[in-house]
């Protein structure tokens, strides 16, 4: 990220889009107390992740820089910042909104795409495996849990919902994530 910021690069439409998320518009009230970033467990380990900076960038409309930052994907959504913000900024909700805009712009990390593909295929982000089937039997549970894993009509419903939302295409292999 360059040190100099050109106001001509600011994208007001992006700012407005982020502000559609309830409580995201409160970013405009931020007075830089740093309560969010100083308490952040991720910032403690990776200083490039800075929720305060990201939300202020959103407030300025710095769309390209923000959406292309790999660090917007580091948030664990622990909500500590959101609970602590004296101005009521819904930090995490705003960041999730920024992520959805990134996805709409074709930006998705490859590992996330793979988890998405698992849900498209199995209806579970973490599908069953043989090791767990053995463990289930030992515990006296049915080998396959009574979820979409066992009920095919349930899985068909989930697949239909995913198709309607266009999620299958969103995580399809060809697009190539960043």
């Amino acid at each position, binding site marked *: 990220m360059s040190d100099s910021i050109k106001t001509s690069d600011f994208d007001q439409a992006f700012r407005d889009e982020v502000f559609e998320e309830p409580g995201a518009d409160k970013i405009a009230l931020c007075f830089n107390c740093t309560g969010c970033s100083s308490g952040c467990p991720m910032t403690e380990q990776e200083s490039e992740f800075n929720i305060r900076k990201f939300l202020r960038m959103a407030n300025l409309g710095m769309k390209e820089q923000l959406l292309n930052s790999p660090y917007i994907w580091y948030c664990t959504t622990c909500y500590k910042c959101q609970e602590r913000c004296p101005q009521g900024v819904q930090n995490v909700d705003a960041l999730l909104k920024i992520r959805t805009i990134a996805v709409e712009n074709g930006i998705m990390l490859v590992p996330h795409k793979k988890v*998405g593909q698992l849900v498209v295929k199995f209806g579970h982000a973490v599908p069953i495996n043989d090791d767990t089937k053995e463990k*289930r039997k030992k515990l006296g549970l049915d080998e396959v849990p009574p979820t979409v894993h066992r009920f095919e009509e349930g899985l068909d419903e989930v697949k239909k919902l995913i198709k309607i939302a266009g999620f299958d295409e969103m995580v399809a292999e060809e697009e190539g994530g960043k």
Partner: protein
Amino acid sequence: MTKLSFFLGCIAPNRYPGIEASTQKTLNKLGVELDDLEGASCCPAPGVFRSFDKTTWLAMASRNITLSEELGDDILTICNGCFGSLTDANHMLKEDPELKDDVNTILSQIGREFKGTQDVRHIVEYLYQDIGADRIKEAVTNPLDLKVAVHYGCHLVKPSKERHLGSVENPTFFDELVEATGATSVDYEDKMACCGAGGGARTAVVDTTLKLVDKKLDNMEAAEVDCVVDACPFCHLQLDVGQTEIKKKFEKEHGMPVLHYSQLLGLAFGFTPEELGIDMNFTNTSKLIEKVRGGAK
């Protein structure tokens, strides 16, 4: 007998079935009947799927809720992520008629309708609010002589606007439930810190998230506890599998046994560690199992 529909999620049934078995055993003992939520899917994971596409997230979450509406039961979750996803979706759809209409237009294509008649519960808050620590204490047959580091995890209490479980910085309800088993909840530094797994972070940048859980484990060890007790299979996985990854990547050994609350409760109700799947973690729990056996009263 009280009835709840049991939402399994992904990680409990598909990686840690001991948590599923323990939940059934302990709740049955407390007079709660659990209905299978047949054909339920991934909640879906809030940080990841809400990040991708809100429509997909809401459609899948609301479909899961309609399964419990059909049964007329409230949903019981055993995972902070599932609790967060389903609570937030349920809350949004109940509050916003327009959004509910949009979602129902999608759901109608699979012959379903979200009505908004049921609540989403989490095993820990359910036990605390509806059963109560006193009743649990009375049901304990095998008081546990254990020092425990309680790990609330984030989405059990936050965002508080949809939870209403009191303080998010210093909650006590989970500690009270742990102590109802005879165990002692030992305070440790940064107790409310995140395990690092959520929000798709573990999927995207596992090594960085390991630094968060490594620190958490260090703090628990400094408090000289026998085990950590969590309320979420994803935290459980990060704490348990995370130790095997830390060993491989950072060449550092923790040796901290990881239990879900349902498993701790199961021990206090006299079930064996094997019946509760405590020996099925990815890290070795034999020391804790020995201690529990030796200390049985």
